């Protein structure tokens, strides 16, 4: 039966997350940005509350929640500050791979400690454009792989204990490898000013690093399936975070324009203002719903999950840019200075959409699947 009602369990967990977002995360945002890292204590609290292990498997001490529940929690948390959420150390985007590869012998043999503070960085070669020089490449070598080149900027690079590299090798075969020796790489800290400054952005460089087969988690068609599913999950978790930021910007702009006066009345009384707030509200709601629907499909492992995750992330990107820009615009000059959070949110938003896939590309890929695949508009 069509319903938009979270379960009671979800509702109470979401409340915890939203309170944490408002009372702990939001107030720490500027400081963490200045320090270019999330406050350790804040990270510990988040871990304590379980927010860093939502995606991890139960037998790895994770909560292993359905994606539907996780997206609602991620949205609530990101209402506080996206930068902080993206800078929380731990399994990060790699968590989805851990979930899907929990029984992989590589992990069994190595018994790496992933649940108490160690940080794993996901380097997805999909985000390598095959455009730039010296881009990171993975070459098959007779008994393993060779990693060579410079990755795109990724989150948490500055804090990396482990790295998970996933994507196509030079022959076009998918492979997922596990790196647990930080001597294998160098991290270029670079010059990041736009946004998500506390999230440890950086690029990995590898100089002909030999990866033995004992570090290969999976390759070939088996890797295809894992990669597809993990990417679907990551897209949705990221889109949910974006929705949380949208909500924050919407509320902030609503509040400001309800109080600020000009020409003798609250500026909300001008349709030039209030209609834009209404459009922001619509876009936020749409992004929310598209994420929820895709999460249900992903939980059910339906074939449409991939297309729906592309669709949800595309819309989240687009709406996020619109909503955060609108919030700055509605605050006028006050939107451009650091006295209010909206200027930071607009910067974080732009950094976020740059990190997680080109808007246009996500759209076209979802569209291609419509033409080559199923027929009906999928909402059922």
């Amino acid at each position, binding site marked *: *039966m*069509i*319903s*938009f*009602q*979270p*379960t009671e369990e979800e509702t109470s967990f979401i409340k915890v997350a939203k309170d944490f977002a408002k009372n702990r995360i939001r107030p720490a945002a500027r400081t963490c940005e200045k320090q270019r890292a999330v406050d350790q204590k804040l990270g510990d609290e988040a871990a304590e509350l379980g927010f860093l292990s939502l995606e991890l498997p139960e037998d790895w001490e994770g909560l292993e929640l359905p994606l*539907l529940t996780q997206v609602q929690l991620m949205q609530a948390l990101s209402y506080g500050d996206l930068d902080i959420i993206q800078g929380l150390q731990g399994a990060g985007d790699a968590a989805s791979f851990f979930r899907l590869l929990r029984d992989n012998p590589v992990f069994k043999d190595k018994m790496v400690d992933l649940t108490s503070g160690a940080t794993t960085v996901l380097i997805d070669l999909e985000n390598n454009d095959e455009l730039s020089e010296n881009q990171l490449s993975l070459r098959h070598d007779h008994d393993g792989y060779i990693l060579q080149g410079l990755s795109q900027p990724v989150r948490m690079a500055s804090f990396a204990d482990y790295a998970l590299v996933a994507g196509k090798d030079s022959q076009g075969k998918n492979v997922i490898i596990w790196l647990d020796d930080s001597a294998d790489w160098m991290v270029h800290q670079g010059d990041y000013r736009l946004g998500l400054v506390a999230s440890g952005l950086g690029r990995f460089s590898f100089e002909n690093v030999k990866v033995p087969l004992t570090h290969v988690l999976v390759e070939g068609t088996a890797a295809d399936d894992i990669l597809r599913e993990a990417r679907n999950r990551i897209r949705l978790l990221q889109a949910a975070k974006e929705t949380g930021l949208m909500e924050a910007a919407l509320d902030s702009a*609503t*509040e400001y324009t*309800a*109080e600020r006066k000009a020409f003798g009345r*609250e500026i*909300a*009384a001008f*349709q030039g203002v*209030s*209609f834009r*707030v*209404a*459009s922001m*509200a*619509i876009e936020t*709601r*749409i992004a929310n*719903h*598209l994420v*929820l*629907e895709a999460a*249900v499909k992903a939980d059910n492992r339906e074939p449409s999950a991939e297309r729906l995750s592309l*669709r949800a992330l*595309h*819309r989240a990107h687009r709406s996020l840019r619109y909503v955060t820009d609108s919030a700055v615009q509605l605050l006028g000059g006050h939107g451009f200075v650091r006295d209010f959070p909206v200027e930071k949110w607009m910067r974080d938003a732009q950094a976020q959409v740059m990190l997680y896939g080109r808007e*246009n590309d996500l*759209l*076209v*890929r*979802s*569209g*291609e699947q*419509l*033409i*080559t695949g199923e*027929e*009906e*508009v*999928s*909402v*059922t």
Partner: protein
Amino acid sequence: MISFELSDQQQQIKEMTHWFAENEIRPIAMEADKQEKVPDDWLDKVNKMGIHLNTSSFSGGGDKDSSGKKAKKEREGNRMGVLATEEMAWGDPAVTLSLPGAGLGGPPVESSGTPEQKERFLSIFKNDEPRWGAYALTEPDAGSDASAIRTTATKVDGGYILNGQKIFITNGACASWVVVFATVDASLGRSGQRAFVVEKGATGFSCSRLAEKMGLRANETAELVFEDCFVPQENLLGGEALYETSGSKPSGFQVAMKTFDSTRPIVAAMAIGIARAAYEYTLDIVKHDYPKQGDFFRMASELLGECEQDIAAARLLTWEAAWKADLGLANAKEAAMCKAHAGKTGLDICAKCLELLGPTGLDGHLVEKLYRDVKVFDIFEGTNEIQHLVIARRQYAPHGIRV
């Protein structure tokens, strides 16, 4: 639990209405547009099948499903209504709007009529011959501003005398009765408004003209005139009691407004059905005739990707509004959101499909008709601007200001 799966009943009505739309409505869509009329024998046939348009909760197949069921069962009439309406409009919106039934006149009678009035006006939709109800609010000088209506209702012995003019009335000329909004005293503003059911053939009630339109040509849009038109007391919707209960609060204006929260999702569902029809028609051509690589393929992927995304977005917003209504929750904001989004993107989607079809699309293709049809869905039942106002009003309400 959040879910987007249809219940058995929902699935059933979706399938049934889709079957009807595909096999009965779509085949006559282009010809009805050309003739600017839905054929009488077709109307007679579907009326005998028991197919009616009821915008409060859709009833297909002749059975009433929203009343008298066993207690505790979750109401789902609004969700069924939007599901069914999307399918029907997918067949053709002008034909759908011309289906026999109470139409937009249904909700005010259902929500505000006395039991006697409900029985008297809603029981006439029988299989013997097609009949319609209609809803007359808009006037030449009162469009979006429903509080500005000038049609007067003067109390006389045994009833009221109406004088005034109404425009853009769907099925207004063929209707057996029309819910007409009028004011007993313009100086009272909204609280002076009353809703009347004016029956066909009433003295002083006539149709002065049928409008020629950009689209929805097969559907009748009438201009109605009331010249010293007597309406008996028992046709005052809700009876005098309704307007006396609590001073200024309930009024004809409230009757008019409260129906929007249930009709806007229905109107949104129609726009979605139209957009989906254009999208599927175009997707089909792209799939079968066009190359699967190269520039055109990429353009088609981009445009169709956007179309499908906006259809899904509009549909989810519409479902949410209907779900809230079924649960008895306030849904004015959601109803306005779905209407605003579906109305606007409906046109965008049809335009994108026409771009893909190219010049060929000008010559006898369904999509150009849908393009002409869909525009008004961003206008009637509250323009896009009015929807934005409603959303903004709800958005600012917690801050204690009224915009």
